């Protein structure tokens, strides 16, 4: 009898967090507290996922949202403090800052190569906080989101997001299933003000373009590297029929440039400016914000197979993901230069 009372008392004691064990995408095991209320994103990719899946648990941004982006974010999250990037290219966060923020969980979303695994282990050791590494590749995104939702205790929401991502991809695949190779559009991603930096085929930077059924003209000749610089001559030789960019400077002058006029995409006015608010539609960062970009690109490349108005799709996406209702005027701004017939 006495033992029963003791056990009952013990199980009722407040503040006793039973650790839950979670395995992340890299196979690492971490012990999480029972209730996860304060979550920190290690980089920009993870920040987007965190904001979308469980904004109320967010305690800060790796880098604060710019003024133009704040308009399209929830009120509370707009003003959260900046902590710096923990790992990845250019880690700027101070470990003491992380410690003083006292997160229940830190996670990163993206690459799970051994480099990132060792970085994750190191941060976990230094700070003592559980650190999850989630695979951010397009085909693993839904599973990663579900995993995160379970870890954070935001199962319903993460399920809704994961399902949206899956359905978006399935829609693309279904409608493009019978597209013959010869009819595939040849796409060039123009980065930087001169438009001569591009992403190589198969890189994370052009993932969305290729997933949406486009052929990236910048073929990959070696296994490594994502970004490369080319000459205008090379672009003319490739003769893409569609160009996508998010550099406003490049977009502003490409149609009046006599050299770029030799490129079929420019000649046919098929140069499109990728929306960026609050997060880039095809990159910057390469995270789940690109889901809308998938549908957008597919619609640009094969409008007859994707006739739905992108404005409606975008409005629904922003409501579900970013939890903001965008007005018609805001949509105009977001989609400036992103639709055919804009010039």
């Amino acid at each position, binding site marked *: 009898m006495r033992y029963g009372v003791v056990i009952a008392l013990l199980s009722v004691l407040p503040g006793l967090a039973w650790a839950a064990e979670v395995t992340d995408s890299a196979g690492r095991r971490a012990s999480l507290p029972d209730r996860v209320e304060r979550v920190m994103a290690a980089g*920009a990719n993870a920040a987007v996922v965190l904001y979308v899946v469980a904004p109320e648990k967010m305690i800060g941004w790796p880098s604060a949202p710019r003024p133009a982006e704040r308009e399209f974010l929830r009120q509370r999250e707009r003003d959260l403090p900046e902590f710096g*990037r923990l790992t*990845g*290219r*250019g880690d*700027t966060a101070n470990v003491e800052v992380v410690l003083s923020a006292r997160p229940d969980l830190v996670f990163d979303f993206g690459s799970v190569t051994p480099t990132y695994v060792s970085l994750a282990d190191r941060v976990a050791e230094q700070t003592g906080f559980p650190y999850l590494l989630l695979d951010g590749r397009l085909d693993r995104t839904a599973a990663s989101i579900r995993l995160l939702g379970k870890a954070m205790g935001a199962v319903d929401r993460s399920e809704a997001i994961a399902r949206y991502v899956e359905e978006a991809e399935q829609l693309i695949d279904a409608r493009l299933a019978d597209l013959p190779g010869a009819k595939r559009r040849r796409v060039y991603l123009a*980065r*930087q*003000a*001169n438009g*001569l*930096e591009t992403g*190589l085929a198969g890189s994370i*930077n052009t993932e969305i373009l290729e997933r949406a059924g486009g052929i990236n003209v*910048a*073929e990959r*000749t070696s296994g490594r590297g994502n*970004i*490369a*610089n*080319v*000459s*205008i*001559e*090379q672009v*003319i*030789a490739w003769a893409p029929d569609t160009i996508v960019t998010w*550099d*406003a*400077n490049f977009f*502003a*002058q490409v149609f009046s*440039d*006599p*050299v770029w006029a*030799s490129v079929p995409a420019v000649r046919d006015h098929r140069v499109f400016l990728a929306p960026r608010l609050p997060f880039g539609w095809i*990159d*910057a*960062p*390469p995270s789940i914000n690109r889901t809308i970009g998938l549908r957008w690109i597919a619609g640009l490349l094969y409008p007859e197979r994707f006739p739905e108005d992108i404005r409606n799709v975008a409005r629904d996406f922003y409501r579900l993901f970013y939890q903001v209702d965008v007005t018609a005027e805001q949509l105009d701004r977001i989609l400036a230069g992103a639709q055919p017939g804009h010039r």
Partner: protein
Amino acid sequence: MTARPVVLILLVVALCVALLLALASGPFPLAVSDVVHALLQDGAPSPGEIVLLRVRLPRVAAAALVGVALAGAGTAYQTLFRNPLVSPDILGVSTGAGLGAVLGILLALPVAGIQALAFLAGLATVVLVYLIAAALRRHERTLVLVLSGVVIGALAGACISLVKILADPYDQLPAITFWLLGSLAGVKIGDLALVAPLVLAGLVPLVLLRWRIGVLALGDDEARSLGIDVARLRAVVILAATLMTATVVAVSGVIGWVGLMIPHIARMMVGPSFGRLLPAAMLLGASFMLLVDLLARSLARVETPLGILTAVLGAPFFLWLLARDRGSWA
């Protein structure tokens, strides 16, 4: 003057050959008809003509100008500072221009803005170095100039590193890295309209004053006793060299080794007398840059940075120079 005109003529011939090779090379397949039509200028231009006239020609001309400017500035500085290990960046113009450019990339300026910022920052850096050296008022003016240049250059380099940290690692950092390694991929005819006159503006004084500049190699005291206003001539040389270098760096990014190596090779060919050395170095520099740029766009589908190619060619050459073990520098 005991001229060796044969060498100079050979260099001119080499330059013409390099020009033709450069115009003929590139990822876009040109047909002979393109060349013919381009010369005849009949009817609407085909893509091949556009590539030849609007893409390759400006790029090739720019490469030649870069070679002329860097080799000319390097030769002038090596004579002025009486030191064969000096490069055009000794007073910090390239590093300063680099800082201007990466700031422009950080601020997401259009291409013209980045170039303008680079040019102005390069000039401002050398002005700063010159003023510091003037304020320090020591006897050994050239030494003070060099040391100030090293210090300010280091400072500018630190600022560049700071900008790299502040830059967006996905979007801006690759662009910054690539710019700092040098490339002529984006050169347009409009760029040439500015670059050519500015490079000429720096070149003309150096050529006109070449005899007097050569006398500076003897040292300040001797040069002055031979009748040269050393302080004024030094200022002119620095201004001319800085103008040329800042201009080409603004358009091509930072390209090292050319200003250091080419004067050496030219000196081996025609001797150290500046009157012969300057034209030889300029011709050689132009040919060299034409070939390097040819490689940059032909080695792979993507551009190889010019700075990497010049370093890969330059470092072994320098080792070979050291191994030759001669009494003095050519």
